[in-house]
């Protein structure tokens, strides 16, 4: 049932690096374990061949949320429960707090990590749309050094990222928040608790004198992986804040999603829901501004 992997528990980044240096194929980082452990039980081919498991929960440096020159650094062993309770995140990155609160149950949020969520890179990963609109990047270490890359480049395909076998993500880096952004996160599941996203959306908008000055939008679950829509963002910067603009944004998002996914059995349902939800989100959060 549970494979007979070798279990490692480094206490420091240096120890982690030296273990990573010795790793062969089929090694995996263990943080929350909420994907890996049930993956063993379900005989998922993604996990059953694991021969080395490196538990990063005892590395104090990875168990921290820091504010460095306005940037927020989130360690890769930080759980969703810790994100939800963090005041810095609540104040400056509320979409991430909201998304975290919709993940699984208390039991899952007490174990599952934000970094594990996007390293697993399921299409429904709830942390991804907020992190994308906040322009998050990540720090990856290996025995040979470290690299920083934007999250949207790190995510390649469903369940596939740029992470190599002797690498470990150590940190999420979120740039200093812009206080004049208004935004929201929306998740639709088949039930209200312990649900897997069918549709998720995150957006941020900066309005000035009733015109859109900056706009960021990302999806999850409706696209094969979480995705930013830069074309839509650019097309609507400079447009006047109005119901017509919101409708146009929502309908354009639907077209782009359809372009990405092609027609599916669920399209008849999901497409109008996505469009209506985005329209409502924009009206609810930004609409009041246009009076």
């Amino acid at each position, binding site marked *: 049932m549970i494979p007979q992997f070798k279990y490692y528990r480094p206490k420091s980044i240096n120890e982690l690096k030296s273990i990573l240096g010795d790793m062969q194929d089929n090694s995996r980082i263990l943080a929350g374990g909420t994907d890996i452990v049930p993956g063993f039980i379900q005989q998922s081919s993604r996990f059953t061949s694991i021969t080395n498991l490196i538990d990063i929960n005892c590395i104090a440096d990875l168990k921290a949320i820091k504010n460095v020159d306005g940037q927020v650094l989130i360690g890769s062993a930080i759980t969703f429960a810790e994100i939800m309770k963090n005041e810095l995140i609540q104040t400056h990155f509320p979409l991430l707090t909201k998304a975290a609160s919709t993940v699984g149950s208390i*039991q899952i949020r007490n174990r599952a990590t934000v970094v594990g969520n996007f390293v697993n890179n399921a299409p429904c990963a709830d942390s991804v749309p907020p992190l994308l609109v906040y322009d998050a990047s990540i720090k990856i270490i290996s025995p040979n050094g470290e690299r920083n890359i934007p999250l949207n480049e790190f995510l390649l395909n469903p369940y596939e990222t740029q992470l190599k076998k002797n690498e470990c993500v150590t940190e999420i880096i979120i740039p200093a928040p812009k206080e004049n952004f208004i935004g929201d996160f929306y998740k639709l599941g088949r039930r209200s608790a312990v649900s897997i996203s069918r549709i998720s959306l995150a957006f941020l908008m900066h309005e000035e004198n009733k015109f859109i000055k900056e706009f960021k939008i990302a999806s999850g679950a409706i696209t094969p992986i979480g995705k930013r829509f830069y074309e839509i963002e650019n097309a609507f910067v400079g447009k006047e804040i109005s119901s017509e603009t919101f409708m146009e944004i929502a309908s354009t998002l639907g077209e782009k999603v359809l372009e990405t996914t092609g027609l599916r059995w669920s399209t008849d349902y999901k497409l109008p829901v996505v469009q209506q939800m985005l329209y409502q989100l924009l009206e609810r959060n930004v609409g009041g501004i246009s009076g």
Partner: protein
Amino acid sequence: MIINFKINGKETLINLTKNKRLIDLLRDDLKLTGTKEGCSIGECGACTVIVNGKAVNSCLVLAQQVDECDVITVEGLAEGNKLSELQQNFLKYGAIQCGFCTPGMLMSAYALFLENPTPSREEIETAIEGNLCRCTGYKPIIQAITSTVSGE
């Protein structure tokens, strides 16, 4: 690998000869069969136990991961032969039918009390979000937890 942890207040040493989950360690090695295995994938909450003060699904935790931790299972709630007030209220309000979800429900409620001794009804509902009951229904369970808060 030898793991050293506290189970229901008692220091315990276990020599793990093979990889297993926390739930297997509890049920098979320590014979603490109060913790139930339902879905095995973290959805039903029947296997909920407390690790370092937090409710977790013991089917999602590896036995190695509780080394140097403090673990509480449903067997740790009663004092000797006397059931805790929370357990007594589950009986009093009929919050048990088949009983399979009960240990998990109790542990989720207990974890909530550790963090917040006077939770609101909404906080109680959130606390048992990850615990499925398919027979009693949630009303008597919420009633039992609410009554433990108010001391009724």
